[in-house]
């Protein structure tokens, strides 16, 4: 370290040495623990209340959306209502087309949980997503679902998740996630996520994304849902996957792609 750096370090340390605790003060863990217990009990009750309100509000919004959709759905013309029945050929009335059976979905769903401020996620994300897409998603063998799991130890992870979620709603998730991981060190140091994303996304999309991040409460609700799914799966770190098959849900933490590929191939052989 150069002399002037040492001098600066000493100068700052001398100032910070003025920060001392009050004389005669002895924090007592035994005395404080009952307060902590009481606060965690109250916090759990508050959290459950908030979760109930969020669930009810989300259910209400979903029902309203269904009602609006049904109103906008074009109604079939009934012969009794219409002056002419020519819109419904007689043959069709005699032999109605049977409803189309649902298309079979991929036998495996992989839910990928990431924290955009997590350095291992930045290292492994591209390999995991490109590998899964090329080997399993494009040929319909796996459905890949992106979920956000911002860890509280990362100061800006939640904000980054908001931006990624908003970008996803506009069809820009892949570009946003890639840019977040590419510039992770920069925005992790100064918290300026938007400027870094703006380098990779169209300006009109960024304007909408900023607006959603600032004003749309469903963004946070969606992130909270992802976090709840992660916790229910017992996840504690990122990156992590939950592999869902007809046999159940299997969490896998920090998977290397080669091992994951072998595992998925084995599952598919047994299907």
């Amino acid at each position: 370290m150069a002399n002037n750096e040492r001098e600066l370090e000493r100068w700052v340390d001398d100032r910070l040495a003025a920060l001392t605790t009050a004389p005669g003060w002895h924090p007592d863990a035994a005395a404080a623990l009952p307060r902590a217990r009481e606060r965690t009990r109250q916090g759990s009750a508050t959290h459950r209340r908030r979760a109930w309100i969020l669930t009810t509000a989300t259910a209400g919004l979903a029902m309203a959306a269904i009602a609006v959709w049904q109103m906008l759905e074009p109604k079939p013309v009934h012969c009794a209502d219409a002056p002419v029945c020519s819109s419904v050929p007689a043959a069709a009335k005699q032999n109605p087309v049977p409803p189309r059976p649902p298309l079979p979905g991929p036998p495996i769903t992989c839910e990928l949980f990431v924290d955009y401020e997590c350095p291992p996620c930045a290292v492994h994300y591209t390999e995991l997503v490109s590998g899964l897409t090329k080997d399993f998603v494009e040929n319909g063998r796996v459905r890949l679902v992106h979920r956000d799991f911002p860890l509280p130890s990362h100061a800006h992870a939640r904000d980054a998740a908001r931006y990624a979620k908003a970008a996803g709603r506009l069809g820009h998730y892949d570009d946003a996630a890639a840019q977040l991981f590419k510039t992770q060190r920069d925005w992790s140091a100064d918290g300026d996520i938007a400027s870094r994303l703006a380098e990779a996304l169209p300006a009109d999309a960024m304007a909408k994304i900023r607006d959603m991040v600032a004003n749309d409460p469903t963004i946070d609700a969606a992130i909270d849902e992802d976090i709840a799914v992660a916790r229910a799966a017992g996840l504690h770190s990122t990156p992590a996957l939950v592999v869902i098959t007809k046999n159940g849900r299997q969490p896998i933490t920090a998977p290397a792609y080669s091992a994951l590929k072998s595992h998925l191939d084995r599952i598919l052989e047994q299907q």
Partner: protein
Amino acid sequence: MASPDTGFEAVFHEHYERIARAIGRIVRDPARAEELAVDVFCRLWRSPQIDAASAGGWLHRTAIHEALYELRREARRERYEKLLSFGRRVPNPEELHAAAEEQQRVRTVLAALDPRQAEMLLLRNSGLSYQEVAAALQLNPASIGVLLGRARESFRKEYLRRYGK
């Protein structure tokens, strides 16, 4: 296997005094420092993904973060009080003492700094190694030296701007 409750209590007993003191260095009032310390442990309780091995670093970092936030809140409150009292502000006995005055200056400067830089300075000043600071703030250890240097520059610049040499 220990229940989550006993695990939490063990971590609480192990770290509480240190965390409360870390906050108490930054925040004036010891009672407020203990309240904030309890808040920090409640956040740990609500974060099951933090395991016992990493709890210490997480607690320390979160404690410094909360203490700095409290400092900034106090600074804002004092500004409003100053406005409402038309500039007349009665110093309390502590502030009249020279050593306490220096403490107050340092707190004011810390409250004005970029939060991340202030956290880094305080974690390092608490005795954490570069590696430990990097782990607490989830930074690349190779960049800590440079980032700390910048934080110190910012601290000195702000201090001199407010109080001169």
